[in-house]
């Protein structure tokens, strides 16, 4: 009989928040409410990172996803949609025909693989590594310095590309 500790309770709460708000993301009709629940789901994932003693990643998750990606999506939504007046159906008409069996099938396959091969290979051991910021920073600037620089180039290209794609090109504009 495994002992139920505070860690288990915390995991259950965090998993409930993450999965519950993710289900709200796919089931609500108003896309703006979906976006708010997406932010809540990202916060739940940050809680999962904290349980895995990845403190830097949890902070980065809150900053990047909740602070940047969701706000960016909110801007795009406001520009493309009459948010509060719409009550149209957000899903395709045959939503149960293809997406539901595909999603359930992938879940069954992943779950069977994990449960069958998970516990035999990985033995849990509780080594404290937090705070992880220094270790990650040292790894990024020594062993992974090339991917680090490439990621900065990718970000620069994405920024310039996004500006060019979203810029309105008027034919009568002199430049």
């Amino acid at each position, binding site marked *: 009989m495994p002992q139920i500790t505070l860690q288990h309770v915390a995991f259950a709460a965090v998993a409930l928040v993450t999965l519950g708000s993710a289900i709200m993301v796919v089931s609500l009709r108003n896309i703006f409410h979906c976006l708010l629940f997406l932010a809540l789901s990202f916060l739940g*994932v940050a809680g*999962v990172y904290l349980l895995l003693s990845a403190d830097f990643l949890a902070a980065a998750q809150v900053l990047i996803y909740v602070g940047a990606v969701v706000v*960016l999506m909110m801007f795009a939504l406001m520009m493309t*949609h009459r948010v509060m007046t719409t009550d149209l159906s957000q899903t395709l008409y045959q939503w149960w025909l293809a997406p539901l069996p595909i999603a359930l099938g992938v879940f069954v396959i992943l779950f069977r693989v994990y*449960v069958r091969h998970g*516990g035999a290979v990985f033995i849990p051991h*509780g080594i404290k590594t937090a705070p992880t910021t220094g270790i990650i920073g040292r790894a990024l600037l020594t062993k992974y310095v090339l991917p680090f620089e490439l990621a900065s180039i990718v970000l620069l290209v*994405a920024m310039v590309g996004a500006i060019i794609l979203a810029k309105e090109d008027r034919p009568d504009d002199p430049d």
Partner: protein
Amino acid sequence: MIPIEWYLALSAALFCIGIFAVLSRRNAIGILMGIELMLNAGNINLVALARYMHPKLLTGQVFAVFVMTIAAAEAAVGLAIIISVYRNARHINVDKLNILKW
């Protein structure tokens, strides 16, 4: 300590919810939201496996940082494309967008 299967099951469920969002949404922004959910599920997998296999190395966490970077870039470019499509078609319903089809 929590068995690793719990984390993997959580990530599998999140991934499949993301797949469902990508396949069933009509709004293009909803599809992007599904993609972000799937990337988060992958990140949970990376961090959990790194934590249980090599708890001192943190390779999985470094990789998750890169995944976050690419996800942010992807969201920016994807939303710019959506805004550009909206400017031309006045809507972003993917079941009515057939400009590239002939």
